[in-house]
């Protein structure tokens, strides 16, 4: 694939790669659902190797930013450190495979780390940062890393079904919703 803006050829996962890695991401999501956790599967792949994967860790850390993608990004940074490789040059060739569209925060974090490509299953109507609520992936934000390419819709219905099954249960940690809306 060529690029219009010059430089290196655009980094984009091939169909076979998408099939393989998304299958793994869906396995992770199903595992999470069976354990009563947010059914999101997420992994980061660099040169055919998984360098980070994550699941939502919000409840145990009491830190609402510990989304699966943030956990996976931390692992990528650790992996670079252990492998003695430059973070930027690794990230620039790393793709994220995730069952649900990353939220606005995660999309911005992916930009800040210069991740070039994100493959996701279903849209995230509540928080999505790749077009559903805001389009952080392609917005003009020169001080927020680089834009990234999205490949969406892979096994989307399956991803939605898992989320629906999860949200039927209640989050026991969330405060009781107030009756009056502000």
């Amino acid at each position, binding site marked *: 694939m060529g690029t219009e803006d010059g430089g290196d050829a655009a980094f984009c996962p091939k169909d076979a790669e998408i099939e393989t890695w998304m299958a793994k991401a869906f396995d992770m999501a199903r595992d999470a659902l069976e354990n009563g956790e947010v059914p999101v599967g997420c992994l980061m792949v660099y040169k055919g190797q998984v360098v980070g994967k994550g699941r939502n860790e919000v409840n145990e850390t009491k830190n*609402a*930013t510990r989304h699966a993608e943030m956990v996976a990004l931390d692992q990528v940074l650790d992996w670079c450190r252990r492998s003695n490789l430059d973070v930027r040059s690794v990230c620039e060739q790393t793709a994220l495979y995730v069952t649900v569209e990353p939220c*606005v*925060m995660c999309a*911005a974090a992916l930009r800040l780390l210069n991740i070039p490509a994100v493959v996701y299953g279903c849209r995230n109507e509540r928080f999505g940062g790749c077009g559903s609520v805001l389009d952080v992936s392609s917005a003009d934000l020169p*001080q*927020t890393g680089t834009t990234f390419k999205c490949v969406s819709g892979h096994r989307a219905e399956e991803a939605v079904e898992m989320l629906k099954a999860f949200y039927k249960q209640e989050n026991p940690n969330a405060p009781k919703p107030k009756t009056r809306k502000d």
Partner: protein
Amino acid sequence: MEPQMKRWKGSVCDADSLVAYPVLSDEQSQDVELVEAYAAPIVNKKETSRLIRELHGLYPLNGLQHIKRVRACKGKGSPHPLEVLVCRISDAPDMKVASIDSLLPSDRVNHDGLGEPFVVKVPTRPPLTRPQFELASRHWPTSFHEDKQVTVALRGELFSSHQKAMMHMYMMTALTAANAGKELGMEAVGAVVVDPVLERIIAVGHDCRGAHPLHHAVMVCIDLVARSQGGGYYSFDSYTACKFTPANSNMCEGDSQPYICTGYDLYVTREPCVMCAMALVHSRIGRVFYGSASADGALGTKFKVHAQKDLNHHFEVYKGVLCKQCDHLDILDHSIRKESSDGRE
């Protein structure tokens, strides 16, 4: 965290001059948009209620529910006491010259008591703030459901002198943290999370992205708040200026357990980026106060994440708090960065 309080007591006296501008949603801050419409004088006041009823049947003014159908003519010289809105020009049938006969078929609206139509401009949207209401009312009267707090905030009268003194102290604490981070080679950004009811600092953090590219001051503070509640993922113990107050020290029986940043305020020297702004939504922060705007800022400059439709949590944002000191921090930071990168080349 008493020391900061004492340290800045000297400057609390000028806290009365502290400003905090509310960052309102686009809908609240946009100009008044107008649309042309036909109005007509009511020459016989007794016909008013019948005319309103019949006009409403013919031209219900869908989408203009905020518009008052009738206005009083204040000018003493006016020959008629009232004027009534007939319809938007776009609702009217095609006609060469606008007349009551062409606008109102006499079998639908009895013309008794009505004068000849003329063109007016009416506001297309309901006013959300007092300034919008005042501008809109110059054209045609509208209803207005006033948010008193917004009105007071826009007047700059929302905070008492005591509150301003506290805000001053909190932002000074954030500035101190920013400087501590800068000394370690981080970007000069500092943040403080406060429980405004107990008037207690919960966490103080500064930018740590030298060690981790996503450890912006706000992200650091969010994890420190988690630490204060017995959670947290990272350790910032090696940064002496990053600290937290355990939530349970000082809690009375019956106090509800704190839940992430619910009810807390954040003070940050620079407008948060998209990542940090959305992290604050996820953390259900109460209010955010910042000093300087930033180019990619997401609480006013590029986005207004705090007022973004579709999101499940919204919060108030105030900017310009100690902006001179905060701007100075940014300017210094940029010049140092420029110098060091120039030096490298």
